[in-house]
């Protein structure tokens, strides 16, 4: 027996007399058993625990305990076999006998079941009553279906088994009195049981039938749904997607306000009820699961989810208050039927694709033909592609192929290297993102830029980014850093920079597509914003091409802040500059310009159109991104038209800004110069009608913004509390001990003390154990000796009697 156990035992024994002191000591108040520990001094406030003791009683108890435990062990010291009672819950006092019986029966059944029913499909559990098989008693004809499973049995065992096993042990308590009465009559009971069983079988069968029906129905529904789903690719019920969309939106809003950042900084990773409220952690896990956690199932879901997301996009547009209509959504799909093909990149159901395509294509002859051509081209391509290890590899794979082929290649690379298929695929695809980004940059710098391919590749980039947010953000950061670095170098050497090529603009646009730009702080978006600001402030506008680029940057900037509605001084400056260079110098003298624009000089009238005819023939159209990359000697009429278009875009952007910044407290101070310029601008009515209307409406809108000039006030800061001198509280752990030390020190001392006491107690116990054992051994030896002595004595006795008899015989002989 271990020491610990002993100690435990001792503690119990020592505790018991103290607790029992009140009761038993008084009950048999044998004054000779009571030992009084005399106290030398009375100390106030000290609780005395050991002033009275019952040495005799406690000694007897200790002895009893030892005989029960130590002695037993001692006696069984050489025996290896042990008697073990394995009846269920035999020594568990917390269970009632009925419960015990039920559990035992359940276990029994289980064992029975495991053994047989694997092969013995036809047989139900054998029911017994009073130890006899029920099968012997009755004959039922109905066949029990084999697949009645555990669930049913559970129901059975709750009611029936207990009833059947009424004789086994705990009698049924739920059963009513009458049944108890009937127990005497064997025949009536038999009937009753029969009835019960029949009923249960019936129920079971009914349930089975119901379940099958339900299964059939759901299958049918599923099939129907699949058919409908493909038809109504963007008309899924809103409500279903609603909460799916709500959550990320709420998330975005939270990040936009930038509150969490501060909070997170203040209390890092403090798990508390707060976390439950915002549910952020949950969402994070969601994302991961979505993309690459497990095998195919997940992927499939992913694809579907994306589909549904995509499908609900138009609605989201409307929700966000954008002015897009239904016809726009039609357009978005119309350019070619590939758009949904790509959105299914993740989905593994290849065979569904053609079907879908066929469903969509009717009515659009040329596009479907094109799509087919793409498919045909795809058939010629190999089906598997190794993930490229370097950019050159990817380039060689893609270069010289048509757009459809390129897309197919990228798609197949992704599929063949899906992270669920092999170990290293994740890293490969992460690299693929970087390469694709580089490739996009290359395409953009080509002459002419291959924007259509980029347009499609963006979707792949988005998908990859969803899968690997970390590496994707790193790649984008790298690209942005490159661009900024180049610009910084140019500024350092030349003092000014030129607007970078189309590739940087496209990278910035891609950043907008991949990351939420409304966040208060975002590891990728915030640097991108700084980059945009640099483009607008550091790069002087020298040509029409620069104007187009600059306007694109402005558009991007406004898109970045579309949701968060944040204020961009650079943008206002730039628009002011655009308006300025669109007015003749004479008219615009006196307005204040900021950096990238000059009040005078050869570029200060860049957008002025003097040709009346060109003004008359101009029609409003959107700018082409191709112009940004290289504007090759357009005719003067074309150039003039582009000028007017630029001006129109500038004015439209300005108009967009007005309601956005209308709520800013110093709105009029911000818009002042623009407004002055616009009124000037209007004065020389040389512009087309549409532009003038645009100007006019912008102006009226500006004027209609109410200015709120409420004097600023600080928030009231909390009053600084007076310094209070609270008394120092020291916890008194034990009287008579040294206090002064720190809490830890005190705790340590206390523990040391406790350990010492316990150790002594344990040693004492062990010693007592030894004594006890020695006593036992001694008594054993004594017993053995006594026995031997007795036997020897017996022997001697018998020998003596023999001898006596023999002598007596001898004497008789002699006498004879």
């Amino acid at each position, binding site marked *: 027996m271990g020491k610990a156990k002993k100690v435990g035992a001792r503690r119990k024994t020592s505790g018991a007399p103290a607790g029992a002191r009140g009761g038993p000591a008084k009950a048999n108040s044998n004054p000779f058993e009571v030992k009084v520990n005399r106290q030398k001094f009375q100390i106030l406030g000290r609780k005395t625990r050991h002033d009275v003791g019952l040495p005799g009683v406690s000694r007897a108890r200790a002895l009893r305990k030892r005989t029960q435990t130590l002695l037993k062990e001692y006696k069984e010291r050489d025996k290896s076999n042990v008697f073990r009672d394995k009846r269920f819950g035999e020594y568990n006092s917390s269970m009632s006998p009925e419960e015990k019986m039920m559990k035992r029966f359940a276990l029994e059944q289980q064992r029975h079941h495991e053994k047989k029913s694997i092969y013995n499909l036809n047989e139900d559990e054998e029911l017994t009553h009073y130890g006899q098989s029920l099968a012997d008693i009755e004959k039922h004809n109905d066949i029990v279906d084999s697949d009645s499973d555990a669930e049913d049995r559970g129901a059975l065992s709750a009611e029936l088994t207990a009833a059947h096993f009424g004789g086994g042990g705990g009698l049924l308590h739920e059963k009513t009195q009458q049944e108890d009465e009937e127990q005497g009559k064997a025949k009536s009971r038999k009937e009753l049981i029969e009835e019960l069983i029949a009923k249960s079988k019936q129920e079971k069968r009914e349930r089975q039938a119901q379940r099958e029906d339900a299964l059939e129905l759901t299958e049918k529904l599923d099939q129907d749904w699949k058919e409908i789903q493909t038809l109504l690719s963007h008309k899924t019920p809103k409500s279903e997607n609603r909460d799916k*969309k709500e959550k990320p939106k709420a998330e975005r809003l939270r*990040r936009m306000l*930038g509150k969490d950042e501060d909070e*997170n900084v203040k209390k890092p*990773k403090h798990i508390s009820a707060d976390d439950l409220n915002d549910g952020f952690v949950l969402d994070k896990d969601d994302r991961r699961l979505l993309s690459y956690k497990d095998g195919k199932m997940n992927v499939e879901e992913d694809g579907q989810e*994306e589909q549904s997301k995509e499908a609900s*996009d138009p609605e*989201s*547009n409307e929700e*966000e208050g*954008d002015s897009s209509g239904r016809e726009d959504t039609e357009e978005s799909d119309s350019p070619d039927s590939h758009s949904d093909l790509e959105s299914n990149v993740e989905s593994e159901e290849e065979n569904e694709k053609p079907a879908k395509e066929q469903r969509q294509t009717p009515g659009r002859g040329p596009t479907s033909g094109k799509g087919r051509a793409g498919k045909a081209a795809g058939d010629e391509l190999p089906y598997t592609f190794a993930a490229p290890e370097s950019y050159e590899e990817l380039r060689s794979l893609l270069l010289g192929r048509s757009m459809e082929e390129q897309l197919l290649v990228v798609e197949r690379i992704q599929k063949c290297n899906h992270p669920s298929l092999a170990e290293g695929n994740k890293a490969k695809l992460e690299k693929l993102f970087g390469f694709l980004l580089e490739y996009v940059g290359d395409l953009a710098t080509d002459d002419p830029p291959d*924007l259509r391919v*980029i*347009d*499609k590749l*963006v*979707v792949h980039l*988005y998908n990859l*980014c*969803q899968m690997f*947010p970390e590496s994707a953000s790193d790649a984008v950061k790298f690209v942005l*850093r490159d661009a*900024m670095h180049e610009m910084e170098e140019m500024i350092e050497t030349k003092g000014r920079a030129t607007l970078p090529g189309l590739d940087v603009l496209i990278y910035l*646009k891609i950043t907008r*597509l991949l*990351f*939420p730009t409304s966040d208060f*702080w*975002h*590891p*990728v978006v915030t*640097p991108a*914003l700084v980059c945009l600001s*640099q483009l607008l402030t*550091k790069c002087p506008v020298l040509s029409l091409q620069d104007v187009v680029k600059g306007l*694109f940057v402005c558009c991007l900037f406004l*898109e970045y802040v579309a949701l968060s*509605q*944040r*204020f961009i*001084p*650079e943008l206002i*400056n730039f628009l002011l500059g655009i308006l300025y260079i669109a007015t003749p110098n004479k008219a615009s003298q006196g307005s204040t310009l*900021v*950096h990238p624009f000059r009040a005078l000089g050869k570029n200060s009238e860049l957008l002025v159109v003097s040709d009346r005819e060109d003004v008359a023939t101009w029609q409003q159209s959107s700018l082409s*991104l191709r112009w940004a990359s290289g504007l090759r000697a357009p005719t003067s009429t074309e150039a003039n038209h582009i000028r007017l278009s630029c001006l129109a875009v500038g004015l*439209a*952007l300005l108009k967009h800004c007005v309601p956005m910044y209308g709520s800013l*407290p110093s*709105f*009029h*101070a*911000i818009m002042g110069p623009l407004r002055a310029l616009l009124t000037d601008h209007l004065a020389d009515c040389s512009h087309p009608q549409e532009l003038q209307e645009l100007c006019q409406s912008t102006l009226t809108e500006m004027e209609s913004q109410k*200015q709120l*000039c409420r*004097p*600023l*006030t*600080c928030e009231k*800061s909390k009053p600084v509390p007076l310094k209070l001198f609270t008394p120092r509280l020291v916890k008194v752990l034990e009287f008579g001990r040294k206090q002064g030390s720190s809490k830890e020190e005190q705790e340590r001392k206390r523990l040391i003390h406790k350990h010492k006491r316990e150790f002594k107690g344990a040693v004492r116990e062990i010693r007592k154990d030894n004594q006890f054992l020695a006593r036992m051994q001694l008594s054993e030896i004594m017993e053995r000796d006594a026995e031997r002595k007795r036997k020897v004595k017996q022997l001697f006795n018998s020998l003596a009697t023999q001898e006596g008899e023999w002598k007596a015989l001898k004497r008789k002989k002699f006498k004879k």
Partner: protein
Amino acid sequence: SEDQEEIQEAVRTCSRLFGALLERGELFVGQLPSEEMVMTGSRGAARKYKVWMRHRYHSCGNRLGELLGHPSFQVKELALSALMKFVQLEGAHPLEKSKWEGNYLFPRELFKLVVGGLLSPEEDQSLLLSQFREYLDYDDTRYHTMQAAVEAVARVTGQHPEVPPAFWNNTFTLLSAVSLPRQEPTVSSFYVKRTELWDTWKVAHLKEHRKAFQTMWLSFLKHKLPLSLYKKVLLITHDAILPQLAQPTLMIDFLTRACDLGGALSLLALNGLFILIHKHNLEYPDFYRKLYGLLDPSVFHVKYRARFFHLADLFLSSSHLPAYLVAAFAKRLARLALTAPPEALLMVLPFICNLLRRHPACRVLVHRPHGPELDADPYDPGEKDPAQSRALESSLWELQALQRHYHPEVSKAASVINQALSVPEVSIAPLLELTAYEIFERDLKKKGSEPVPLEFIPAQGLLGRPGELCAQHFTLS
């Protein structure tokens, strides 16, 4: 002759020859009679020889002075060193008779020739001047250079109606090379070896040096200089020129003139003026008005932004400035901040807050608890005079607008005014040189604790969904 080698050899020979003659005293001493007179006269051959040699020496000096304008730098350098050697030897063995005991004699004519050659109106002599710089360590050469420079400037400006910029550049290089010792030196170092020093010599006194220094600079600055030179002068004004002038307040003419030029020059001039006001009790009532006038939107975009705000911080550091003035500055800066890039905003926002901290009377700009609601901003941005701008009646709504700035740090910096301002000022020194590139790098390196949030609306194409701005205004084709 044309050959460089020959010229160099000739210069060396002359230098050696006349050096030896000077040492031996074989040149005529005293008022030099004309050559023909001596030749025809019946004096001794020795005297004739001496006078003749003196004439040759003289023409050699002139010739060397011309060589200072030679296209080859080696020749120039050699000529300069030869001339300076002559100056040294002639100083030691003066060619004129000392009129009294301890008469200070210095070969002024020769030296004038040197300085005149250096301050050439035709070509840039900066290399030669940097050679000459080593001679300026000596007290006597420095003193005489200053005197000679004054004369040279007067001569050239008198001769030419339109002074070529090369001359001004040369002059400036020479002038800026002159630096006076801070304290009266215990031992004067003379280029010309002197056996004994006399207290009556002007060269030995720092005060005289200062006077000369002042006349030199003033005579230089009173002329109309090219703009680039203004900048150069102003850059060294406050630490190289002003402290060493005998009467610094005399610089005010120049500074006010520079002040009206605008841009960076006015700022630099203001710096000089500020030193005069601060250290030398100058009264200049328009100072802050001029500074106020310098604040325009371009101030955040120019190269000297850091210097500007450093100086502005300095000018506005006094806590005794009137509240209306500080309020006007704060309001003006806030107005300008509406057009500033983020790197400037990060600097100017703490700057404004510092102003408010320094002047508690200006806190009404951010905290006016029971003020009436206004229809428009009472501040008048067009007003030139800060006193008339009614800034104190206004509030810094601009900062409130900037709280919605797209950059998170700017937004935070602007949000400071929402709370009562803390007492200690924020040092803007580290923010002065902040560039956008640094902000960019900093943002890139900053790590978020959570994973990168992603856009949840799937991408459809490069231009985004049809409703968005880019798609509205741009097409791919």
